[in-house]
């Protein structure tokens, strides 16, 4: 069950960062530190509402956090979950390496002579 939860989390994370605007938002937030939603929206040629939706997707998977000061919402990047994606890629790499090793062994088996 734990593994399933990890898989769901990974899948959600990958979906969240599979969008260019959201990756761009993350990049901005890392560069600028905590930023107001309205200021973030100014960087994009889209409505405040649309940018706000992207931020919510990132927030849901924990890639950004939100702090409210009255009516002003500050958004901050949180890159801890990125580690999960990196780990997944490391695993993917070792699996492909295993398969290529298999292939080499397999193709060598046929020619004993």
């Amino acid at each position, binding site marked *: 069950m734990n593994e399933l939860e990890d*898989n769901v989390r*990974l*899948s959600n994370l*990958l*979906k969240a*960062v*599979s969008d*260019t*605007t*959201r*990756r*761009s938002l*993350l*990049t901005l937030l*890392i*560069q600028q530190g905590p930023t107001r939603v309205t200021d973030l929206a100014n960087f994009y040629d889209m409505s405040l509402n649309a940018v706000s939706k992207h931020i919510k997707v990132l927030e849901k998977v924990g890639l950004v956090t939100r702090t409210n000061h009255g009516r002003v919402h500050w958004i901050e990047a949180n*890159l801890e979950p*990125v580690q999960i*994606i*990196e780990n*997944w*890629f*490391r695993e*993917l*790499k070792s*699996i*492909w*390496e*295993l*398969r*290529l*090793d*298999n*292939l*080499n062994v*397999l*193709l*060598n088996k046929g*020619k004993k002579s």
Partner: protein
Amino acid sequence: MTELSVNITKIINAPIEQVFDAWLDPKILSSFMQPMPGMPAPETEIDASVGGRFLIKMDVGDQIIPHEGSYHEIEKPNLLVFSWESPFSGEGSVVTLNFKSLSASSTELNLVHVKFPDEESRSNHEGGWTAILDLLNNTTSESTSTA
């Protein structure tokens, strides 16, 4: 690793045609496409044509996880490009295989598995994953050096 892709180069001790053909032969494919170490060979179905699809049913013990995709480019014996869809990897990733003949009996095989394939090349600076990881590495090394 600083980008969202896997890049592996391996020398296979077999002629280039044989190495290439192995990827499009369901029987051979299933005998090297292990889901993970110690797991049984998967069942495979292959329609080896551009636009054709393949299906690899990976048996990981308590469940069967289908991996599938379609062939984007088939240029025997040098290039094979296919999409790779697995249930947990979200949408869209592409595997590119480049085959280079080194001698009559050895082939260099380069495998690149990229996530976000189209967007990555379109907007490397503005929304690229690499850019994010670079920034992340910079910030973590800064904070460790000041600590």
